[in-house]
């Protein structure tokens, strides 16, 4: 089995890659880690005329902690490399917890941050993490660039704000906030398989011990990572309790997600998983916000 024929280009600079995309636009496809693109090319579901391989652009491969506590990650940085960053939990405990759930180590050795975000698979972990963390993405095109917040980036199934000639070149994760705890929960049939359902959660507390702000984003339940704004709003101003988390989980599972179901999980079962994972995530996030240590 082989992909259909294509013209292969491997630019060594971002400028050269942007020139190629400006010239060829939707005729061309960007190759980053290739862990999603090459399978669909092997099946000939994708038959790009021109393949622009970004892997020779070393300038896009970096992890840059900033003085203000934020973290900048180059688009071509491998997920495995991010996972191995010793300081990662200080920048984003949520990303550190989520990364081992992304497929298998062999896949994470190739997968890139920019690739998984641009591909926008609704079952992917990193997009949900970026939404909860309030990350933003730098998109470059020939002669310019723009920053797009994660909240405006994911448009539909495998569809994003990226124009055909744009490349996602950098992710900025903001500095962690005080009195905030996060949790990532996922259920798959086998570790590394696509999630049947998953959730990324964060809880920020006010100084009086009440919840200041809550955020819940689900994966594998819709065409995009699903921001559960109603369930998240139910958390604000409340004192944390099992019954609150139970009510929020029930609302998310019954009113906010509308899963289509898959061969492995019916819609009802997916809703059940959403409820269970939400309760677990909120309890874990609350504990961590209060400095009660890891529970995983």
């Amino acid at each position, binding site marked *: *089995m*082989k*992909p*259909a*024929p*294509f*013209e*292969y280009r*491997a630019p060594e600079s971002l400028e050269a890659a942007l020139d190629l995309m400006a010239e060829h636009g939707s005729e061309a496809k960007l*190759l980053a880690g*290739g*862990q999603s693109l*090459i*399978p669909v090319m*092997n*099946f000939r579901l994708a038959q790009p005329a021109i*393949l622009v*391989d970004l*892997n020779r652009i070393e300038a896009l491969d970096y992890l840059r902690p900033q003085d203000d506590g934020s973290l900048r990650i180059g688009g071509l940085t491998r997920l*495995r490399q991010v996972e191995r960053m010793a300081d990662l939990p200080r920048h984003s405990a949520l990303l550190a917890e989520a990364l081992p759930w992304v*497929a*298998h*180590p*062999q*896949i994470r*050795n*190739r997968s890139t941050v920019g690739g998984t975000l641009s591909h926008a698979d609704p079952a992917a972990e990193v997009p949900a993490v970026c939404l909860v963390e309030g990350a933003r993405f730098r998109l470059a095109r020939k002669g310019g660039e723009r920053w797009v917040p994660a909240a405006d980036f994911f448009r539909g199934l495998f569809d994003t704000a990226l124009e055909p000639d744009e490349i996602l070149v950098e992710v900025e994760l903001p500095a962690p906030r005080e009195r905030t705890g996060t949790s990532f929960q996922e259920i798959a049939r*086998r*570790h*590394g398989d696509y999630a049947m359902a998953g959730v990324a959660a964060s809880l920020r507390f006010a100084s009086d011990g009440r919840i200041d702000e809550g955020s819940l984003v689900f994966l594998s339940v819709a065409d995009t990572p699903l921001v559960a704004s109603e369930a998240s709003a139910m958390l604000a101003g409340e004192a944390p309790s099992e019954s609150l988390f139970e009510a929020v989980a029930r609302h998310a599972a019954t009113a906010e997600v509308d899963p289509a179901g898959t061969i492995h999980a019916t819609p009802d079962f997916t809703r059940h998983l959403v409820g269970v994972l939400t309760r677990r995530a909120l309890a874990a996030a609350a504990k961590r916000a209060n400095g009660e240590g890891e529970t995983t």
Partner: protein
Amino acid sequence: MSDRHTVRVTVNGEPRVAETEARTLLSDFLRHDLGLTGTHVGCEHGVCGACTILFDGEPVRSCLLLAVQAEGRTIETVEGLAPDGRDHLHPLQEAFRETHGLQCGFCTPGFLMTLVPFLEENPDPTEHEIRMALSGNLCRCTGYQHIVDAVQLAAKKKTDEGGA
């Protein structure tokens, strides 16, 4: 068909050169162009792990890389584990043999190329860690138990040697 490239790559310590189409997968390049048929192809879409090789030292699926992407890189395949043949197997291969960690053997090269770097990074893994490490490789014969046994045996032998 017109888009052909010359690929220069170091495989198991030896420089190799071959011309190939841009669309040739690295797995097919190793097998057909370089004659290294130890790397097996199963699903050819990244699920089964049979084609796992080391690419610049890291285990990856060779069916999800193009041969042209290997230009200038370093590759290790299962053939490199026992360059002197069957009398001098790699310690993990020995352990697979001792514990019946293979039956038909089709998946074995992929397991070995996944687990050799895993053991280097984690010389004394727990059973849970071993099972997580091999979760990206499919075996339809063994039920995995004997593969887990093999990894534990190889780890124990190495620890015993180191401690002696």
